[in-house]
């Protein structure tokens, strides 16, 4: 949940950058690095969690797929936006950080058996 809050903060920041037509600054990249470390920890804990004490109807591979996906968006977004110094490039990064909380929602759905 703290990760979702950080992602929304980063998203807000990126939206401001887009309006002012600036590219991501160092402080934002540091925040994204913190988020990414958190996501990798989340990935490892999540795999342990789902393989040890998941309810039987939780699809393990689907769950792990979403965990990996959640950890990949931010680095892909950073690489993409650094190669594309424009408002649209920053928009791609904004999209990436918004997808992370969405993945958390899907993970919670999967865990609850809603698939």
């Amino acid at each position: 949940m703290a990760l979702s809050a950080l992602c929304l903060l980063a998203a807000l920041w990126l939206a401001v950058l887009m309006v002012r037509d600036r590219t991501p600054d160092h402080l934002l990249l540091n925040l994204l690095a913190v988020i990414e470390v958190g996501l990798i920890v989340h990935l490892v804990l999540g795999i342990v969690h789902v393989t040890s004490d998941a309810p039987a109807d939780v699809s393990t591979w689907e769950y792990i797929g979403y965990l990996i996906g959640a950890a990949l968006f931010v680095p892909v977004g950073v690489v993409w936006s650094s190669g594309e110094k424009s408002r649209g490039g920053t928009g791609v990064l904004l999209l990436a950080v918004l997808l992370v909380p969405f993945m958390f929602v899907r993970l919670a759905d999967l865990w609850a058996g809603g698939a």
Partner: protein
Amino acid sequence: MTASKQRRSGAHQVLLALYALFVLAAGARAAVQLATDAGRAPVAYALSAVAAATYAAGWLAIRRASVGRTGFASVMLWVELAGVVTVGTLSLVERDWFPDASVWSDYGIGYGFVPAVLPVAGLLWLRSQRPPV
């Protein structure tokens, strides 16, 4: 210089990212569902695979259009829109064909209606790419 600067708003980058995302999302979904339980809703799952292929073609079309070759995109985006509208309508009219949802079921409700908005956004962007006649 001014011409190249104008091209650098990069709005199509966001479209490309969304299309790539939907190639993955629809493709992975279709692959998993066809591989694990194809018999449950064969029409819906096959249409998800069609959606994934459409997004791959759409991605290519937008890439080409961003360097001035708009021909393919001006056809492909209409095909995509027609696909969303047709499948979305069928999913409401012919409920029996969709025991499980497809990507374009109910006009993409499972994806926050982004599949319905995407081709329209693409076509609007395409209009801005062409010099007014």
